[in-house]
């Protein structure tokens, strides 16, 4: 039952239509399925394969390369604690230790209630604000043991529900290309001449 929903099939078709070749929609569609199901399921990969006319193995082959795709049930909140140099210099190890103690799980595991998955992560492009972590890819800066505890309390109480959507949802909005403004996308082999504004120029 984890094929894409009817609603998401409509979205998926819109996304596919944006690319000159439909396989380019593979990663965005796997994201869409992860947004729907919280992780990437086999049914979803089969469905995506059908939609972009590749084999399910090709979908898995690509998806398994990328860290954000998870192939098993994952907490509603994925906490990624950065452990790369700048964060490590500012106490990332101690933060990770504290996180493991507070949550009662080792990095890589999910709490019993299925709410939080804790992970070690690499540089999050926030190195000046070390140590950092992300909850569902939303940054938290200069994290102390106290602010970590507060974060966990807020996640448990639902205080952050509007700011942080469940794991899998990348953005709370989407790109929308209005039909009356869109340029018709063509496969590269169907394009034989230069674009209009180049042809009229002296070059």
């Amino acid at each position, binding site marked *: 039952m984890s094929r894409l929903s009817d609603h998401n099939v409509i979205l998926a078709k819109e996304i596919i239509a*944006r690319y*000159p*070749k439909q*396989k*380019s*929609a593979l*990663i*965005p569609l796997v994201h869409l399925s992860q947004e729907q199901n919280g992780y990437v399921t086999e049914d979803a990969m089969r469905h995506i394969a059908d939609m*972009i006319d590749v084999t399910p193995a090709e979908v898995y*082959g*690509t*998806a398994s*390369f*990328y*860290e*954000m*795709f998870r192939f098993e049930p994952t907490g509603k909140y994925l906490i990624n604690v950065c452990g*790369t*140099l*700048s964060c*490590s*210099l*500012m*106490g990332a190890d101690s933060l990770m230790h504290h996180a493991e103690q507070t949550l009662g799980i080792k990095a890589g595991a999910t709490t019993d209630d299925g709410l939080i998955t804790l992970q070690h992560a*690499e*540089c999050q*492009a*926030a*190195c*000046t*604000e*070390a140590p950092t972590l992300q909850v569902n*890819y*939303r*940054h938290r*800066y*200069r994290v102390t043991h106290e602010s970590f505890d507060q974060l966990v309390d807020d996640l448990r109480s639902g205080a952050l529900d509007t700011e942080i959507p469940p794991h899998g949802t*990348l*953005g*709370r*909005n*989407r*790109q929308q*290309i*209005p039909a*009356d*403004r*869109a*340029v018709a*996308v*063509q496969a*590269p082999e169907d*394009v034989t*001449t*230069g*674009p209009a*504004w180049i042809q*009229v*120029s002296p*070059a």
Partner: protein
Amino acid sequence: MTVESRVVSPYPWAPGFYPGDRPEIVTSRFQYEDGHTLDRYLATGGYEGLRAALAESPSDVHEVVKNSTLLGRGGAGFPAGVKWGFTPQGVWPRYLVVNGDESEPGTYKDRLLMECDPHQLIEGSLIASYAAGLSQGFLYIRGEMALAHERVAQALNDAYAAGYIGKNILGTDFSIDIVLHWGAGAYVVGEETALIESLEGERGMPRLKPPFFPAAVGLYGMPTIVNNVETLSNLPFIAREGSEAYTAIGTPTSPGTRMIAVSGHVKRPGVYEIVNGSTTFRDLIFGDDFAQGIRDGNELKAFVPGGGSAPWFLPDQLDIPFEGPAAGAAGSMLGSGAVMVMDSTTDIPAAALTLVQFYAHESCGKCVPCREGGTWLYRIVERIVAGHGTDADLETIFEVGQTICPGEMPHASSERLGLDAVPFPYKMTTICFVGPSAYAPIHSALTLFPEEFEALVTKRADRRPIPVTAEVPA
């Protein structure tokens, strides 16, 4: 100094960014909390560069960018105008791919540009596409940047609705779609040919070279211009103010400004837009306008001058100008504009381990020296740091390094050890720089601080054979 007591940016919506008494080319809107909105953008000169460009022929706009000598900000520093000229004549379509995959350790600038001024990036992408005849653009954003996605998606939607993107832009025959593409987490995808593979729906592995430039053979085999977010964000200024206004800032070989991040053990870690050629490393680490010195009154021990891939510098390299050639001669590079500072309390082997772990983890597995060598370097350094290493491991690190980077490896001079600097770059056996990057930090750490490693490992003379016992095991 505790984490809480550190200085904070005057602009909470641009965490870590500090303005200064310096020209602002790409960060001029960071002062506005709503700098990411179309309204603010239009009220502060937004899309005027595009209007100016559309009033001229594409080749004239290309000429302006060539004359500006705008250098790529993604790490390699290649002149953008020259790169656009590599597209083969008469081969269509041509594509634009915006590299927003920022993930080099220590690097923090592209994300701020996407979050705080997404329209500037869009306008720059449009100007590049107009000049180089690119008929579709893909804005590839690192997947782990949720806010940047939201801001860029909103900006694209608003720009479409207002007629800045899409069919017949501003009533001209310039038409282009720009598609927001979500990455999914893989450092190596920042390498431009891997970025293209990923955009084609494949595993993000770098392509064999030649062809060296995607400008010749890129997305779907077609000519493709790949530029970094910061590079493109400079174009609205250049198109609006002209190339002379741009080259008036900075140096003749490296004009304009550049965003750099200084992180680690400094009083005011931050992101700064600096004028190219105007600072030394000492200014950046100790200057009042920049990172303001080492925290807690400690001494500087070492610093990484240009992102996690860069060989390390020592305090006696502080007066080197923050310029590519000078950093290269001294044994390193400026790379992606990321300085990471370690004070006297730093455990050097443990610090190096975080970087070796990063690159070993991020190897795509296509080249043996990187896949195997990186993994072995990680395993060896990990056991040394855990106290289980031997002095033979230290030799093995250099041996593994030789398989990735044969010959002399660049490093800084060290008065203490009587070492001379070996200039950058190195030779490599791999397709891309991930392999060498796993070796560079541990090579620097081990060459410049051998005593810290020796103190951790068991020496050969102390090793004892396991005694044979007479008893028969039960």
